[in-house]
């Protein structure tokens, strides 16, 4: 087997079982060395491609399916099936959330906040100018007095692109989401789960959602946000 064919074959499939390739490597140490190198690189490629998967993704997929199924069954099936599905869903939701279920956007906000610790370590300090550049997309601006911003990234809440700011609060990390209000459904003015509570309010054209570990901090930080963030209509 000539050199070029050999290289092409092992590059196309580093773990090829082709006898011609195996024989060629056996008879030529140079070819064997090249193959070993490709295999080593392949291990790195495998590791690089192996990105982490959100921990609760499987649960989310199952929950979403059961909700979709529920609304579909309601239209098609007789009442007793609909009722059984309702009971099953109610049980699932009760077990899943334990507290009352916040709306879609609020729920997504709470889900995002689960990862703030990790997010905040990922990037290090954030430049205020960058934050303001991103906020400009929502016709807004922010003053440094808000506190130390440790992360400013776009994320999707109920498929609406929002800006997620993570700011160091007095006790823990505070999350603030900015969404364009004209395409945002109503969000409860207060919501919570076991670990976090949140509030939502309007600043001109922007809907602001603040999430933190307790009500007191959320209220304090909301007051700061109203003071140090500005949005035009």
């Amino acid at each position, binding site marked *: 087997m000539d050199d070029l064919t050999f290289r092409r074959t092992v590059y*196309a499939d580093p773990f090829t079982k082709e006898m011609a390739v195996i024989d060629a490597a056996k008879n030529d140490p140079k070819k064997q060395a090249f193959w070993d190198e490709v295999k080593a690189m392949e291990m790195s490629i495998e590791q690089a*491609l192996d*990105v*982490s*998967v959100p921990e609760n993704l499987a649960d989310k997929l*199952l929950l979403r399916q059961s909700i979709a199924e529920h609304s579909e069954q309601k239209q098609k099936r007789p009442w007793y099936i609909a009722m059984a599905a309702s009971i099953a869903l109610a049980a699932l939701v009760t077990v899943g959330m334990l507290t009352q279920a916040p709306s879609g956007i609020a729920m997504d906000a709470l889900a995002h906040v689960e*990862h703030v610790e990790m997010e905040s370590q990922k990037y290090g300090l954030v430049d205020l100018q960058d934050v303001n550049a991103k906020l400009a997309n929502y016709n807004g601006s922010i003053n440094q007095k808000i506190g130390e911003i440790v992360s400013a990234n776009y*994320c*999707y809440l109920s498929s609406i692109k929002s800006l997620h700011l993570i700011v160091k609060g007095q006790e823990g990390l505070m999350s603030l989401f900015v969404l364009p209000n004209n395409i945002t459904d109503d969000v409860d003015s207060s919501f919570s789960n076991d670990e976090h509570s949140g509030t939502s309010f309007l600043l001109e054209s922007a809907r602001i959602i603040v999430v933190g570990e307790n009500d007191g901090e959320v209220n304090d930080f909301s007051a700061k946000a109203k003071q140090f963030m500005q949005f035009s209509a």
Partner: protein
Amino acid sequence: MSGNNFETASVSTDMMTKQRRYEALVKALHADIFRYAVWLIKDRTIAEDVVQETFLRAWKSLDSLQDEAAAKSWLITILRRENARRFERKQFDLVDIDDVSVADPKATDASDTQQRDLRRAIAQLADDYREPLVLQVIMGFSGDEIAAQLDLNKNTVMTRLFRARSQLKEIMTNNSTIGAQING
């Protein structure tokens, strides 16, 4: 499931079976499908949305999946269609490469620099080269299976795989020389 009404019992049994199949499908394949989506779309958040849509659609047409062995390629076909639909719906903002959240939030070690470079290099590959590579490495597809999935002939697939790896090799070699110059 021993109801007096046979019809009810059989309807619920069908639903239970479908539900169990779906749960098994989600558990077995959601991770690989998500990884595939991340590399196809190059944005974790959008990838998660598309995976959600994919599995919802899979649930709706689960009865059409006869052969569990074909489940992977069936899901990938749905996912690629859902992804294409995303572009029909609206033109998304172009994501610039530094903002790409392919990056693993857990990878913070300094020893991961090389891996980060490699990830960036993979993200830079042309879609035509990256996709067969991802199907081969993450999904464990053979050349023939990739060819069938992407509707290409096998020779084209093997050439693209070869080019994908040789480009990666080239980018990584250049990176390490540039890196050495900067660091040194």
